């Protein structure tokens, strides 16, 4: 199964929305990393990742988000994950990452 990444930037150029569709695993994680990391490395950027259409993510996907989180600390940017499906959210809970990554499952991506 593949992963599609749509990047929607806003007019001011300080907010980026990544809309993901598909599965994040060892095969698709590099693609996500390639798209996500340059965005969080822009100073002061707010990067929202919409996971509404991600049905499966394994721990390699978590690794990508951890890298991104570390990058936000260096570049004073912000990472926010929205609209997680239950199975994906459980992964963030078990690993305790929901305590350090900004996650909002109730928010619809882009609003």
């Amino acid at each position, binding site marked *: 199964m593949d992963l599609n990444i749509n990047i929607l930037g806003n007019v001011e150029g300080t907010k980026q929305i990544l809309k993901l569709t598909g599965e994040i695993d*060892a095969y698709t994680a590099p693609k996500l*990393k390639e798209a996500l990391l340059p965005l969080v490395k822009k100073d002061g950027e707010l990067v929202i990742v919409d996971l509404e259409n991600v049905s499966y993510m*394994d*721990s*390699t996907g*978590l*690794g*990508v988000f*951890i*890298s991104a*989180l*570390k990058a936000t600390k260096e570049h004073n940017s912000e990472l926010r994950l929205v609209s997680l499906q239950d*199975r994906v959210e459980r992964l963030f*809970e*078990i*690993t*305790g*990452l929901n*305590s*350090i990554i900004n996650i909002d499952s109730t928010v619809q991506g882009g609003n």
Partner: protein
Amino acid sequence: MELNKFDFNNYRDLLDRYILKQDESALYQAEQFTKLSMQNNILPEEFINIHIQALKELYPDLPKEICASLNFLLETMISYGLAYQEFQTLREKQGELESEISVAASMQQTLLSTTKPEISGLDIGAISVPANRMNGDYHHFVKDESNNLGIAIADVIGKGIPAALAMSMIKYALDSFPESQLSPSVILENLNRVVERNVDTNMFITMFYGFFDSKNSVLQYASAGHEPGFYYCAKEDKFIEIKAKGLVLGVTPDAIYEQFELKLEKDDIVILLTDGVTECRIGERFIESEEVLHVIRQYIHLPAQEAVEKVFKYFERIQDFHLRDDFTLIFLKKEV
């Protein structure tokens, strides 16, 4: 490498037989001949050259147009020959890599091997099977002089060789902590600092650490983002998820791990696992944890080692004997 005269004559005769009689058996023998030629590293253009020479011997008056066309064919085959040589070289290289990986895998096994200790009053079963050759799961037992058991179960995220190398680091860090009186939360906090300093940003480790106090039959434990295990309470015949929230190792240097306690009674079982068990898929469908427990329930009356092996066999079978992830399962069964 050149064909010898005998082989050349053999090819010529086969060709002759085929041209005259369209003989099937000549075709079959030609196929055998090709295989032999490949073993002797005969390149495609050399083979065409043999064909041309044989044809010229059989038909000395071959029209010059046919001769020219065959020479033309020979030239065009040279690139195929080069590609074939490259393929041969890669195949040899792959063989070398394979054997290096085998050496690394067996070295990993030696470095990370743990012996299941004998703890009176506790029946221990453990199985760990890698999906590929290198195992990203790890488990480790330590027994102290007072018949207490320390047990670690971990999963390195990031697979393959880097994961295996990170495992060795964990093992040596664990070994370097003094044995006396280390509580699970302190062990995880120390390990977290080691991992945070030493691994790449997109790699991290989940670990459950338990310490079984034999005298009081109490399991103290803490978890660093590890897949929750289960506690089987024999008296109520019920499985309860072992909840112990904590951040995975290696993300922030100052993570704190809360420690919990569980009192074990006769026939109670502590079930520890990695996500290779709970993330098991059949086709597109995931196995839910109720289903995992349903399988485990069928074998809990067995001795612990036999039980973990039976559970593994079951999951191996439903995944068509092809594990997607490393699989580790441990039972600690309280006997008296």
